[in-house]
């Protein structure tokens, strides 16, 4: 399984904790709302990503497992 960041755009309030804790994958737009890199979260960023998820004051950020396509 690999992990991807997902955000509930309605819950998100532009507080910016996620971008502070995971600048490798999350930046803020001109109004403070997150721009999130798509795709798999690299293993070495996994712990930081979990911290960012826990730190969101409105619980808008989640880390979800997505099945890895089988190698054929």
């Amino acid at each position, binding site marked *: 399984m690999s992990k991807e960041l997902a955000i509930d*755009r309605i819950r998100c309030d532009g507080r910016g904790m996620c971008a502070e804790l995971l600048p490798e994958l999350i930046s803020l*737009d*001109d109004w403070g709302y997150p721009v999130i890199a798509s795709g798999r979260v690299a293993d070495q960023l996994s712990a930081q990503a979990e911290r960012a998820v826990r730190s969101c004051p409105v619980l808008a950020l989640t880390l979800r497992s997505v099945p890895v396509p089988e190698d054929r």
Partner: protein
Amino acid sequence: MSRLRLLSGPDLAAGSEALNAHVQRLGPLPAVGPGLFDSVERSGLTGRGGAAFPVARKWRAVSAAGGGGALIVNGAEGEPQSFKDRTLMSLRPHLVLDGALLAARAVRASSVVLYIGEEHRTAQVTMARAVAERPEHELRHGRVVLAPARYVAGESSAAVNLLNADIASPTTRPPSPHEGGGGRLPTLVQNVETLAQVALIARYGADWFRSAGRRGAAGTILMTVAGAVTSPGVVEVEAGISVREVLELAGGATQQVTAVLLGGYFGSWVDAASAWDLPLDASMLRERGLTLGCGVVGFLPVTSCGVCETARIMEYLASESSAQCGPCFFGLRALATTSGRIAQGIADPGDLARLERWSREVRGRGACHHPDGAAGLLQSALTAFAQEFLRHPAHLGSQVA
């Protein structure tokens, strides 16, 4: 070129077709069996609300999730330039109701809700009158819910949200309404034109449906022709006809046409020369990076200004944001203000670059597709009216609309 199916029957000037005339002309409501799913699937029917999602696939998803939710008959028609849904409900309400019953029974919906625009009084009257004529218990126990006159009120999750929580604002996906989830039963939301097509497919079959259509497209579609044409309004055409052909159906242009807006306010501007031969079919346009949307095609005359029109549309779309998501609320406001400044001839240096950056950045960052539609419209304008954006004189307000 004009191929009447939904709009065939008595003269359109005669108004709403009554139940006995409808049954006499088309026969009674067909029964629902596994054959109906197959017919709808083989017909290739896709939704006519703007997203062109395959109908059979949606029905199978609702059924697989257990059914039991409502069927929302979506006639909200929030797109201001679109008239096809109101027209269909006003003239052929029993086609819509037949389709609604067939869909509700196919997916085992628990109730039928007719979702009609709060300002669309004729459609409200004709649909209510038509329901009163019907014996079917789903309609006797069904109800009409009025959609607020907002652009996003017709979005499928907004319709569901209005029923559940009294506010016609879109909700986060996943899950989509037809998937259910989050304590909600799967809800089938289907456009009124889509349901009317189902009513005919159930009677005549998939092969019949596919016997109309040009250039490999299937079926007929309702379109609203707008702008500098002799006879603006709703036409029913074979899917796949060209932009040039639909212009002819609307009586030709009243002036020289410089650009065409394909697909309404979530669509794309295309310069006239590139537009004439485009096929009006959802999947064929999608292959070209364009959209049929809800079937509005608008013709911009040489006396109108693409920059001014675009700024006006952006202002409208910005004010129609449900204001639930920061990127949409702030991003569209910035796009509208900035394109308005360019239209007024008081652009700041860097405004064009900002428009390009913000429209790229806002995409995919709202809960619904409102910001994507608005950004897409602006990006198409920046291409179609590139020279005009660079050199816009200040004439906003003095143009003839």
